């Protein structure tokens, strides 16, 4: 039984530490906020210009001036602060965010990440993804282990244009968890999802990896 999307989010949430300032990407990373461990208090940054993101508003209480980086209506907390996008990315680029959790299309054994464009398709843009992977202290990628076609996504080298080179610290898929360490050390498989075999992971992975379960 591989992990569900929520299992993956819950696993990613175990990377949070008390007092962390964190940026969560769109998709599964957004679900991480639902699994923050007890006794751990984290502050969520939204790169358009906010620290201390609260939950979605109740119906009828939406504020057009208060959205997150996914352009969704959100709320503020007592501890929130607002700032410009230049100040927000100064925070990101300057290494002040402890952890970023984001989605991926491909990850390489060198720690490269591709998640913003597919040649031949209309490119929507990288938004803040390149800044986040370049600037945040620790980058965790959460993605499906394979393409819908079955092609592996943890590769020797990414074939898609990169979002960042040597930027991924940890990869979480439905099959398990890989330590990538920005490509500074060999990739290590450190956890398997329940019921997933090493053989299955090997069959579905192009990158070389060590096993350290």
């Amino acid at each position, binding site marked *: 039984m591989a992990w569900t999307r929520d299992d993956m989010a819950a696993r990613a949430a175990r990377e949070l530490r008390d007092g962390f300032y964190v940026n969560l990407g769109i998709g599964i990373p957004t679900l991480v906020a639902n699994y923050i461990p007890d006794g751990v208090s984290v502050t969520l940054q939204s790169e358009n210009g906010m620290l201390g993101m609260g939950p979605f508003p109740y119906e009828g209480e939406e504020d057009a001036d208060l959205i997150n980086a996914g352009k969704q209506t959100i709320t503020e907390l007592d501890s929130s602060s607002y700032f410009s*996008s230049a100040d927000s990315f100064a925070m990101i*680029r300057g290494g002040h965010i402890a952890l970023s959790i984001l989605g991926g299309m491909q990850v390489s054994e060198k720690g490269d990440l591709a998640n913003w464009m597919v040649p031949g398709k209309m490119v929507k843009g990288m938004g803040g993804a390149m800044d986040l992977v370049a600037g945040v202290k620790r980058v965790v990628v959460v993605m499906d282990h394979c393409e819908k076609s079955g092609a592996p996504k943890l590769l020797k080298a990414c074939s898609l244009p990169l979002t960042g080179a040597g930027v991924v610290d940890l990869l979480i898929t439905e099959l398990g968890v890989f330590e990538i360490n920005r490509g500074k050390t060999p990739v290590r498989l450190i956890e398997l999802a329940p019921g997933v075999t090493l053989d299955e992971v090997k069959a579905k992975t192009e990158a070389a990896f060590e096993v350290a379960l």
Partner: protein
Amino acid sequence: MVDKVKSTAAEALAGLLFDGMTIMAGGFGLCGIPENLIAAIRETGVKDLTVVSNNCGVDGFGLGILLENRQIKKMVSSYVGENKLFEQLYLSGELELEFNPQGTLAERIRAGGAGIPAFFTKTGVGTLVAEGKEVRDFDGELYVMERGLVADLSIVKAWKADAEGNLVYRKTARNFNPMMATAGKACVVEVEAIVAIGELDKDGIHTPGIYVDRLVKGAVFEKRIERVTTRAREAVGENAAAGVEI
């Protein structure tokens, strides 16, 4: 004393527009966009615009209405995914597009306004973004050189202003507006309210009046929301009996 306050968006823009110019437009998605000034620019029909803005509105609202009217030649943005017409114009070659990482775009604009012609950043090293740009090693890490960005005109949306042009933004509607206010050769601002001089907290002014050439109280603010996202009210249970409003 120079009077910065104009009575309509059209008057605030009078004499500042010309074909082929570069305009910076504040906003993130549809949040904090100068909707009245955009509408006035559409009315003038000025064309061949290069527009620097994080996004390009949606079909029928925000910068999308300048696309519809074929007034934009080129966009400098970080993300343009919300707009069908954009895709169509781009794929047919009618629209040029330059992507910048969002933080690089924000910093390029800040640099332009601050007299900094170029700076180095880690963002984009080893990617398409760094192609054709200088990459340099500082203390063992690689950085790419990015250029400051200025425009002929910046159009900005703030919440409140005084007649001096001191501006305050509200919540995440601040986004790109403060930097753009500094990086236009001319800067025109629309606000929801013009308050008496002295009413704004002097320690809390986001954009000092020196950056603002003209100011208008917007006629209408639709403030459309791109993605209304809500949560369910908590299960009612005992509280309902206690009369908690749902």
